[in-house]
């Protein structure tokens, strides 16, 4: 769809033909407020008619942290931790729960919003993006608990914490990209809906969420680095707890995340014109 200005009128041309990258940034900008409204809708609706509302968003990371803490301090022990285990686990879980729920939400977002996709025009990318961003609110509340816990354990903040948003941003980009990619496939192949939880579960076990990568042998640690989440998790922790950054694994994470984002954007823009016909 090419747009040009002729006189005062905005001209839209509708033509067949697909291209690999027909992303219309101007159009996207015009609809930016829709992202806000869809995120706002998702959050409102999620906790309506629940008795404890947003507390649900906190229960999951807190309880999981408690369980892991019992297991990994009472029955098994990691030696190479720089911080108390609950801090280690909660910081990893917050990132993981965000990535996990965002990809799940975004992966199903086009299908769940099929009533919009088949009835109204707007840049389709808004759907998976807003589905992802909804999870950030839960993340923010969880982060407050993490800060409280750090205070409790007497972990002092270092200036490195200023880098934490960079790693959260990387996690968002990774989640949006994966979510968008799966949402695209999901339009044609509902199998994605069933494959996704399974794939995410495997991803959780191969990410250093409740174990530090230091417990693995050299060979396995290199493999672990190829997981884009590894650098994000470790970087996030290092910035919070003031420990040393592993720039090598962070660089790999950045590279893989950007690669995933490019692939997702390419596939999405290639397929988006047919969504209404297949959904």
């Amino acid at each position, binding site marked *: *769809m090419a747009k040009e200005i*002729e006189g005062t*009128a*905005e*001209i*839209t*041309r*509708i*033509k*067949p033909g*697909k291209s690999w990258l027909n992303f219309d940034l101007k159009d996207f900008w*015009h*609809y930016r*407020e*829709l992202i*806000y*409204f869809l995120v*706002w*809708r998702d959050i*409102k*609706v999620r906790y*309506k*008619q629940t008795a404890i509302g947003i507390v649900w968003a906190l229960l999951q990371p807190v309880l999981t942290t408690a369980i892991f803490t019992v297991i990994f301090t009472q029955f098994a022990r990691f030696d190479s931790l720089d911080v108390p285990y609950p801090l280690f686990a909660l910081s990893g879980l917050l990132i993981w729960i965000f990535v996990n729920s965002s990809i799940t939400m975004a992966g199903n977002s086009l299908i769940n*919003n099929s*009533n*919009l*996709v*088949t*009835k*109204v*025009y*707007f840049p389709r990318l808004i759907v998976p993006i807003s589905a992802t961003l909804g999870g950030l609110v839960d993340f923010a509340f969880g982060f407050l608990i993490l800060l409280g816990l750090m205070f409790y354990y007497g972990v002092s903040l270092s200036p490195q914490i200023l880098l934490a948003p960079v790693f959260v941003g990387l996690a968002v980009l990774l989640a949006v990209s994966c979510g968008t990619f799966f949402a695209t*496939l999901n339009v*044609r*192949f509902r*199998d*994605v809906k*069933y*494959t996704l939880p399974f794939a995410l579960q495997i991803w959780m076990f191969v990410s250093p969420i409740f174990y530090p990568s230091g417990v693995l042998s050299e060979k396995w640690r290199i493999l672990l680095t190829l997981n884009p989440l590894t650098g994000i998790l470790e970087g996030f922790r290092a910035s919070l707890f003031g420990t040393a950054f592993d720039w090598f694994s962070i660089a790999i994470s950045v590279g893989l995340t950007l690669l995933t984002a490019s692939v997702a954007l390419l*596939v999405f823009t*290639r*397929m988006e*014109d*047919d969504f*209404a*016909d*297949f959904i």
Partner: protein
Amino acid sequence: MKPIIKVENLSKQYRLGARKKRHSTLLDSLAAGFRAPFANFKNRARNDKNIFWALKDVSFEVMSGEVVGIIGRNGAGKSTLLKILSRITRPTAGEITLRGRVESLLEVGTGFHSELTGRENIFLNGAILGMRREEIARKFDEIVSFAEVEKFLDTPVKHYSSGMYVRLAFAVAAHLEPEILIVDEVLAVGDIEFQNKCLGKMDEVSKSGRTILFVSHQMGTIAQLCQRTILLERGAVAMNDKTSVVIEHYVNQNKTKDAFYAANEAAANREMYVESAAILNEDGGGQSSFRHDERVRVNIKCRTPRMFRGVELRMVVKDGRNITVFTADAELVSLRQNTEAFEVDFTIPAVTLRPNAYSLTFALFVPHQDIIELIEDVVHFSVFDSGTKYAQSEGLDYGLVFSPCETSVKTIA
């Protein structure tokens, strides 16, 4: 002056059966998922049989400020045309040039969420329709008073009556200010009073110099609003002229009613469908006009890739005033599970139907569960009186059927 909407040789092709493809294993589906972007290409060239043209070489122009109606039977391509104009789907060939901001209303209340309040839905729906937040805020009071829902603004819309819901939804849409407005049948909602209000609003919008493309089945509304009307038939422009001329042609054309029905190509995509229905005389020949003492045979052929358990075929006979005269059901239990096609004959006995015009509706359904196919008023026939005593005073209401009522007359001693 250049036309505000210019449609040139627009065509849209659908590949039938594409949706039915199922993948048996996870591996298949993953492999297919990754192949999909490339597979399309090959499929397109190969399966000519599965191709269905929803639109074929459609061209027309609309000048700024015109209100143009689009009419046509179901499946003529009206919805597809609107979807392409609204940028929901792409054409297969051709080009459209739009000179102005377009908003389309293919449905009222798109994106309404039942858990959210009226106030929240106004903002959400407005944003979905492309309005800015400050634009919605500016028009908020106007929208609320148009919808007459002041008292329920902070109630979740799931508690609204259907009338209130529709009023609110339409009110948001009615306050869009595009240069080109594309409207699909959304006025057929709400009570008469509200419909008139909507029509008034549309009229107001058109008088303010905006261009409207309006699809409807209601000829009255089209005649009232549109100066010019386009008639679509089987995906092509059959007529494009003054509204009165087009409507007259369309209505008259609809009068020549068929005694035969054949499913269009799109039906082949369905899981079970009526392929044809014909009205036959005793000798098996097609006939559309019967003596009252003739038997009327209705022959229906159906296709299905697999039989549904417990499915029945229903025939509903309606008379010229659209009153249901009777209903007949055929249970299909005797058919084997692997049946791919079957036919059903209903024979209406002689001296049953009164002289009148009749239409038949067919449904394939599983009682209390599912309607698989419903085709309404598809074949037509008439019965004439070939000499009963009622014929002498034709026009009086003698009831819907000749009843084989037993009569006995006796003198009481």
